[in-house]
Structure formats: C-alpha cells, structure tokens
C-alpha cells in the first residue's frame, strides 16, 4: 500500500482553508491523504514538528508570521526535499512570489482556488515527493553499499597481502624446519658413533646456525611489521606514531609485491613523531607503494625498464608538518587519470585486480581524518610522485 500523503493548509482565511480541504476531499480518500490546517505562520510552524507534513499549501500574506518567514524557518527541510511547498498567491504577489521560489518553494496556485489547478498542482507535488523519497532510499543504499565495499576492500587488501605474506614466511619456515631435522640427524649419527659425514661438519653446523638465525629474524621482522597493520580498524586510535618505522613496516609487509619489480631507495630525514592513527597511515603508505609497484610492472612489460621507487621523509618546521614523498618510475598518469585519481571506484586496472578504492580511502584518511594533504604529480610515461603532508600535532 502507498503511504498516506500528509498535507498542511496554511491560510488566514477560513473560507480558503475550507474550500481547499473540501476540494481535496472530493479527489483523495483519507487513506491517500491526511489534511491538517493552520491559520497563521506561528501555528503552522508549531504543527510542523509533530505532524511532519509532506506538502504545505502556504499563503504568502498572513498577519504576524507570513509565508516568507515560514519558508525561511523551514529552509533546511525544504532544501533536503523533505517537504514540498505550494504557495497560495493573491493579486500583486508577483515580486514576493519570486522570492518564495528563491527560498525553495516548488510551485504556486492563485486565488481564487480552482479545482483543476489545485488537484493538478497537488498531484505534481506528490509525484515529486515520491521521486525524492526513492532518491533518498537509493542514496542510502548506495552509501551502505559503499561502506560495505570499503570494508571489503580493506579485507581484500589484507587477504591478498596475507597470501603473499604466508609465502614470505613459508620460505624461511621451510628451511628452518628442514635444517632442524638435519641437525637432529647429525646428532643421532654422532651419538651412535656413525660419523659418516663427508663435508666439514664444523663449518656446516655453523652455517646451519647462521641460516636458522637469518630465517628467524626474517619471520620476526614480518610479524612485527604486521602488528602495526592489525590496528587498522580501531578508528579512534590516535597515538604517537613513527612515520619512518611505519614506512619500514609497510616495506616489509609488501615486500613480495615489489621485490621482483623495483629497487627501493630510502632517504629518511629523521622526522619527529606525529600524532596519528598509525595503522591507517600505514594503509595509505601501502596503497601508494602497491600502486607504484603496479605502475612499474606495467611499464616494464612495455619496455623492460628497471624499476625504481624512492621514498623520502622531511620535516618542514615552519608548518610543523612531516612530508613523505613516494617517487616511482612507472607508467605515470595522463591528465584524465590524475583528475579522477581519488574518485571511489576509479581504476584503470583489469577487472578483478583493482577495486579503485585505494586512493579514495587514502585521501579520506589523510585529508579528513588527519587534516593532512595528499598530492600527485605525474606525467604519462615518466613516473609519478606522491606527496603526503601530515601535521605533527593532534588533528
């Protein structure tokens, strides 16, 4: 069933109120339309809050609070499309009428009230009301969907990373476990007096220990770095954050994404700690880094260039800001891509490999959550430079 449309008739003339109500009642059933009336602007505004009309038929000229004033009070609701207003005008209201339209009135009807004019205007207003309602609903759904996508994107990014990280860890675990097994064998042989080892046991065992230590360090490094990403979803976790450590962590976690693609060069300016949500800032670094690796990879497929990523940090004291630069020698971007870079869902990557949310999320995190700045300089064919500015103090 369709909802009942709530109409409010505001006029100081009882005759006009009655005429309008009676005319409406002949065209609409009580299920279709509920009608309330007010005799001046004050009463109308008082009723508005409890009754919440969808359509107001509003006289312009009224004693005390007139139509214009009512419109001004309801400005916000009118602009949001929550209520449609149809002005009731007399002779010579032309100038005021145009002001009403500026204030958001949607239509008008002139006195004396005529049946056809009234009903057709009302039907128009009802149509508009429905349209706006479904727009609102769509918008809500879209927002919800976007939020879900954003969440999914975070998960997907983490999931994709997880597979790569598992691989990074499985390698050292592979040789650690194998070596432990080998050591056990050596030990058993030694205990049973079977010293049939052919190469120099001493050097071999020393080498095993070195390999074990190397592997364990490697795993420890990855796990430590991961820890700083695990806070991504604690929204309000603002803490002292070491930007340079964050970059190191990001490099560790994403190593499998760039190690066969580019050399990474770091120039740290020994910047101060900043107040930030470290997990989220790391997420930004990760997005930029992975984009750079992707861009280099595509460029390599074209011309086989050697990949280079440079990461710099610098403290800008007069602004109390930390500047982080990511420079890559990948494909670069054309004007159009640069323009749309931060749009949600904008991607030039093949279906299934990019959701196009990386930079839009990053923008949100840097600009909205940390009151920082993010800028891209790029030229097609010549690589890209991203600059992130983050204030040292609390945002």
């Amino acid at each position, binding site marked *: 069933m369709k909802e009942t449309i709530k109409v409010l008739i505001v006029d100081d003339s009882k005759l006009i109120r009655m005429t309008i109500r009676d005319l409406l009642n002949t065209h609409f059933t009580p299920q279709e339309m509920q009608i309330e009336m007010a005799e001046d602007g004050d009463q109308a505004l008082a009723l508005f809050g409890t009754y919440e009309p969808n359509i107001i038929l509003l006289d312009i000229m009224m004693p005390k609070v007139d139509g214009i004033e009512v419109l001004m009070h309801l400005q916000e609701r009118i602009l949001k499309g929550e209520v449609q207003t149809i002005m009731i005008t007399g002779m010579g209201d032309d100038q005021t009428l145009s002001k009403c339209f500026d204030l958001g009135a949607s239509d008008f009807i002139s006195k004396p009230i005529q049946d056809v004019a009234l009903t057709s205007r009302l039907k128009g207003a009802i149509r508009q009301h429905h349209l706006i309602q479904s727009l609102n609903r769509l918008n809500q759904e879209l927002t919800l969907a976007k939020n879900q996508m954003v969440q999914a994107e975070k998960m997907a990014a983490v999931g994709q990373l997880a597979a790569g990280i598992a691989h990074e860890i499985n390698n050292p675990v592979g*040789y650690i476990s194998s070596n432990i*097994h080998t050591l056990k064998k050596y030990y058993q042989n030694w205990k049973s007096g079977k010293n049939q080892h052919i190469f120099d046991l001493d050097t071999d065992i020393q080498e095993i220990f070195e*390999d074990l230590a190397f592997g364990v360090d490697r795993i420890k490094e990855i796990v430590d770095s991961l820890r700083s990403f695990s806070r991504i979803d604690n929204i309000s976790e603002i803490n002292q954050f070491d930007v340079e450590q964050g970059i190191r962590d990001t490099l560790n976690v994403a190593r499998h994404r760039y190690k066969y693609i580019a050399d990474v060069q770091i120039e740290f300016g020994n910047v101060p700690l900043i107040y930030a949500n470290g997990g989220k800032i790391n997420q930004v670094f990760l997005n930029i880094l992975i984009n750079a690796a992707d861009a280099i990879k595509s460029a390599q497929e074209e011309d086989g260039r050697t990949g280079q990523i440079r990461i710099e940090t610098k403290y800008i004291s007069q602004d109390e800001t930390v500047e982080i630069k990511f420079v890559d020698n990948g494909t670069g971007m054309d004007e159009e891509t640069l323009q749309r870079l931060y749009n949600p869902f904008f991607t030039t990557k093949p279906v299934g490999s990019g959701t196009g949310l990386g930079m839009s999320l990053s923008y949100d995190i840097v600009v909205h959550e940390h009151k920082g700045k993010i800028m891209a300089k790029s030229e097609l064919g010549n690589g890209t430079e991203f600059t992130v500015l983050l204030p040292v103090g609390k945002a």
Partner: protein
Amino acid sequence: MSKVIAFVDDEQQILRALKRLFFQTDYTCLFFDKGGDLIQYLESNKIDILVTDIRMPEMDGIALMHAVKRMQPKVIRIALSGYTDSRQILAALDSGLARLYIYKPWDNDQLLSKIEGLIRMNDQLADPSLLQEINGLGSLPTIPDLYAKITDLIEKEASAQEVARLVDSDPAIAGKLLRIANTAYYGLHTGSVQQAIVMLGMSNVRQIILTNSVFERAAYMPYAKDLWQHASLVNQGVAYLYSLCYGKSLPNHQGTAGLMHTLGLLFLATVKTDLYLELIEAVEKELQHSQTDNNQSIFDALETEFLPVRHPEIGSFLLNWWELPFDIIEVAYHYREPKPELIVNKELVAMVHLVSHVAFGLLGLTQFQYALDKEFCDANGNLTRHQLAIEDYLASLLTN
C-alpha cells in the same frame, strides 16, 4: 647410473637446506639460484628431475618448467612453493606441466619419499620389457584433439566460458560431462555445459575427456558398461569417503582418481578382446569351483597367465604418458594390492582400494574382485570403520 636432480630457488638458504637433505642420498644434485643458469646447463647436459620454486625474479618457475619441458620433455617436473592456493600452480598441475606440487615448509622425510616414489614409478613405467609388451598390444589410444586444446586453455588460465565453448563442439563429450555433473555427488541439475565445467573443475573435465576416449573404444566390449558404472561409483564414493575422513572436499587434481583407476582393464579389453574374454571365463569357472570368500584375488592370479601385461601397469602407463597428476597414476598402479613401502600418497590409494572393492561387491562383479587389505586401509586413514557407510552411500546412488 644415479639420477640427476636440479633444484632451483632464488633463496640460498633453501638451496643449502636441500643440499644437506640430499647429501646422503644416491642422487646427483645440482643447485641453481636462477632458472636461466639451469637452461644454460641443459644445453649440453641432461637431468632427470627438476624441483623448482615458483616465485623467482627474472624467470619464474612456470616459465622454467615450460622451457625445460621443451628442451628435455622426459624430465619429471616438481613445483616447490610457499603459495598454498596459487591459481597458477594449480593450473600447472592440472595441465601436466608439474607432476607434483610440494608445499613449503616441507617435511624432509616426506620430500625424500615423494621424490623416490615418483622416480620409482617412472622407472617402472619406462621399463623396457613393459614398453615392449605395450608396443606389442597395437595402437595406443592417442590423445584426443579436444584434450590437447583443453590442456592449452587450462595452461592459459582460460575461463570456464571459453572451455565450455570448446566442449560444446563435441556433443558426445558434452553429454558425458553433464551426466557426471548431474550425479548425486555433484548434485547439480543443469543443462549448461559451462555450469558443469565450473562444478567439476577444469582438471576433471580434461581427465573425463581422456577416459571417454578409452571408454568409447571399449563401449561394445562385454562388461564395458559395468566397468564404467563401477568407475563412476568409485569416483563418487572416494569423494564421499574423503569428506568423511578429512572434513573437506577432495583436492581437485585427485578428483578423477576413481574414474581412472580401472582404465587399463578397459584398454586391454579393447585391444586384446579374445584373451580378455578367455580370462573372464576362466575366472568365472574358478569362482564356481571355489568357496567364495578367501579366493577373491583369482582375477589377479589368472591375469598374468592370460595377458601379456597386467592392467594396473598398462593403465598407469597410459596415465603417465598422458601426463596426469602423479597421485592418479599411483592409484591406478596400486589399487588392487597396495604395497605401502612403494606408495607415496597412501591415503588416496587406501581410499580407492576400499571403495573399489565395495563397489565390485555391490555391483556383483565378482569376476573383477580382489582381496581387501584391511590393515593397509586402517593404517592410512582408519578407513574400515567407514566401510558400512560407504556401502550404504553407493547403494543409495544405485537406487536413485
């Protein structure tokens, strides 16, 4: 002469660990940290086995296996990788590019025994006397055209849609795929080849095409229908048993182990029909004379007498020749009389051993029956406790 194994991995530590592990074995081991170096080496030297990492700079493991396959097709190619579910690696396995996929971290003893088992099986199947017998059998079933094309598509990681388009060009195969996908195990009710392909998985589709080419030729042989029914029952039963035991579904590349395990039998029936019929007649006669139960392996005893090659050997030979996953070859070789010390994937062989025995019994195909090795079944997955459940399940499939 000792076998030559080449190991390729970009991490020195991995290579050193492997070196220590293989030091006391009889293999001649070579270690390369770049695929390119191995390629260069192969220009003037031969190897028998390649064990390679997948993710490597410059030349990755997939490209390396392709190159090695081109240069020395007989080399057994094994992937050793830390990725557990990489599409790329599974495709390599499905298409026969890699015969085995070993995960990092590996277990030293298992790695040794897997490689050992693989080599042993390979040697057995390349044994000159076997080859001679097989050559004497006449024409081997050649690989169907369609199969080669599908292998190609799988290697390219093509979509189900593309494969469906190809399969649709052969109505007989398309029909068979649909029939299999619509069986109770897959539980699909579809007329769409594409859906069937998604359901079955590309590797199984490819293997079904292969079996079909053999079954097709055998279609008019006595018992061919029964054996086909038996094979598809076993295939479903094994999948069911696997999920009972391990709570997950059978890995894709083992998905047709049941369908394939009696392939040799059908092949022999087609190329040596007379001998095969004589054999069955003899088995039936024996069966009448003997008390049923303890003589269950009459077939095996007589098979050697009547036929030049035993069907497990010829079956696994064909599967190996077609480059099917090692697990499936091993099942075809060992399903009747499993010898644990010779088997790498004992769990899978044990499952097929049990289910196939049950299915022969249910279908009343006593001629082909063999003795059940309960000890083996229990040592590898504690299987006999599921025997009744399997019987019920297969019976329910039959009545449906």
